[in-house]
């Protein structure tokens, strides 16, 4: 027994020294870590928005020779971990990236809860954390606490106000009346949005005629849609997650919910959404949006399709890529992998990205789309903050 454990020890030391020499050899690369769901409830969303953009960015940077640091060009070496959509797993993986893999930078997590849960560990090791898929009203509180944390996709309030502004505009134009049916998924995301939306809608003079939540993973949403329809609304708003965004839309088609404004939240902007429903979802409103006519956006969408083989979504995909561009330009701007200097550089400078010029004010970039609309096969942004090219809002005219 003793001899065997001794042997094991020897083998382990040997393996360790091999790994060490490997690390020494690898010093001519810049190591970037990425932790996000590949399995679990958020994996389907991360597979659309997060992972393909990381893949695209690494390939593009390496194709042009790598990142310019320390007076030379270094290729990016990517280290990926699956957080299994579990915050504890995420923190473990981030810790591993910092201490075992000793990566130079880490791509921010996918999902609001994950960004908040992992912020302390990223802060502890001083990694700049440019959060994208994170929407919260606690932005200033969090950026005060974590000097390395940046936000790029807006706050819960901005998100809700976008929807409110769209509805107000439609009401002023005489397209819709005052009655809103609102539902939300009974999960931190849906509950927070519904809580913010209730007073906002009422202040704007709307009457919420149906206001219900449903549990995540509800197999049959037909009672929800039947209830919403029976309340006779002019507009339908759902603070929904991907599976229920699809489910609610299908039920609206089945029940022939006749509203001039139909809004579902996450995943409405996914190409798969129009792939599944085709022309029936023309003029459906949803979270996000983009301006496909912008040349930078168009070029990035083309590259995304060519290199990853996937059509990007019409929302956070662009922001995700833009955040990676910010990181890239900051590293090259500093010219080293000094994380503290890179963090400071992000705070002090402006960045040219697929979303346009991005600057951070108190670690928050207010350049994002909040509401988009499917218009003849393209999900165009109709409301946003500091973005150009918003399309005119159209009214929904049946499900054909």
């Amino acid at each position, binding site marked *: 027994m003793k001899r065997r454990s001794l042997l094991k020890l020897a083998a382990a030391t040997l393996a360790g020294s091999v790994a060490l020499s490997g690390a020494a050899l690898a010093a001519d690369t810049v190591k970037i870590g990425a932790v996000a769901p*590949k*399995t*679990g*409830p958020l*994996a*389907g969303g991360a*597979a*659309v928005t997060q*992972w393909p953009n990381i893949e695209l960015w690494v390939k593009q940077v390496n194709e042009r020779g790598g990142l310019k640091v320390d007076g030379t060009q270094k290729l990016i070496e990517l280290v990926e971990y699956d957080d299994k*959509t579990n915050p504890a797993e995420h923190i473990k993986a981030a810790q591993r990236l910092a201490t075992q893999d000793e990566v130079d930078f880490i791509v921010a997590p996918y999902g609001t809860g994950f960004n908040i849960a992992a912020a302390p560990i990223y802060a502890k090791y001083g990694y700049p954390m440019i959060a994208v898929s994170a929407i919260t009203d606690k932005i200033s509180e969090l950026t005060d606490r974590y000097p390395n944390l940046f936000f790029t996709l807006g706050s819960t309030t901005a998100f809700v106000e976008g929807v409110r502004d769209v509805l107000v505009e439609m009401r002023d134009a005489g397209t819709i009346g005052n009655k809103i049916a609102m*539902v939300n998924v*009974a999960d931190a995301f849906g509950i927070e949005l519904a809580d913010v939306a209730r007073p906002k809608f009422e202040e704007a003079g709307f009457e919420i005629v149906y206001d*219900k*939540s*449903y*549990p995540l*993973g*509800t*197999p*049959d*949403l*037909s*009672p*929800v849609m*039947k*209830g919403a329809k029976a309340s006779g609304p002019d507009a339908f708003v759902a603070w929904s997650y*991907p*599976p229920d965004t*699809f*489910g609610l839309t*299908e*039920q609206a*088609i*089945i*029940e*022939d919910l006749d509203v001039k404004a139909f809004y579902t939240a996450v*995943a409405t902007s*996914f190409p*798969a*959404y129009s*792939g*599944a*429903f085709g022309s029936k979802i023309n003029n459906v409103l949803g979270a996000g949006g983009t301006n496909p006519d912008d040349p930078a956006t168009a070029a990035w969408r083309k590259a995304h399709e060519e290199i990853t083989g996937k059509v990007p979504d019409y929302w956070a995909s662009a922001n995700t890529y833009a955040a990676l561009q910010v990181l890239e330009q900051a590293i090259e701007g500093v010219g080293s992998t000094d994380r503290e200097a890179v963090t400071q550089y992000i705070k002090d400078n402006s960045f040219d990205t697929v979303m346009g010029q991005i600057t951070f004010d108190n670690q928050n970039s207010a350049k994002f789309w909040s509401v988009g609309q499917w218009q003849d096969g393209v999900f165009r942004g109709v409301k946003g903050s500091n973005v150009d090219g918003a399309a005119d809002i159209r009214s929904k005219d049946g499900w054909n």
Partner: protein
Amino acid sequence: MDILVSGLLLAGTYALMAMGLNLQYGVARIMNLANGEMLVLGALAAFWLFVTYQVSPMLTLFIVAPVSFAGNWLIYRIFLRPLVRRSKSQGQLEVDSILATFGMSFALVGIMVSIHGEYFTYKYLSEPITLLGTTVALNRFVAFLVAVLIAGALYLWLNRTRPGVAVRAVAVDTEAAGLVGINVPRISAIAFAIGGAVTSVGGSLISTFITLDASIGVIFTMKALIIVIMGGVGDIRGAIVAAIILGLVETAVATLIDPGLTLAAAYLIFLAVLLFRPQGIFGRRAT
């Protein structure tokens, strides 16, 4: 009427989830935690064939059923049979099979993620029909009809045929069944394989109206477990009655009270059954 029709359709969906596990747990004594993944595999097949080759999910059923039967047969023979052979008691087999199938569920998720990591989104028969004055989705109604068909076929097979009787005998007592000349390992393998096939077919059907992804299996495993335990292990009628109760109650609660309370209502009934009839609605008291 709305509640009755929608509730029964939902019950059909639940029956599709649970009938297979009932056979696997009741007869082969395997607490299959990879049940949900088997269902999602069926869904993935339907999605993939529909999106790539425009094959109707109704045709896919006839591919999924035999493939899943064969696959589950092999899984039982290769991975689970050794566990059955070495286990000294029912309890030990349950622990072993839970661990083995739990591991298997991760492997299956990994395989499915590598095939298609995004949502399985497609629409098939997503059209409204009017049924007794209620608007329902055609795909749900079709799934319900197939569920009724499968349940009827299983019931007749179990009660009217010789192999069916053998299956029930194994469900009652493995040892006694062996003593009267029933080939217990063979019957167990058949029951496990049929269970898997039913679950996968259910997955293909469910995918026409619920958007699934590679990792969602565990949710279906949980629901199936609740239905199987509620209905009573090893009795196909139990799973069906439990599915109907759950479907009707959830729809009634969602329509009359609040959709947010459906889960709470489902667990409340589950709790009540466990308190007052721990062996399940159709279960036999352990002797």
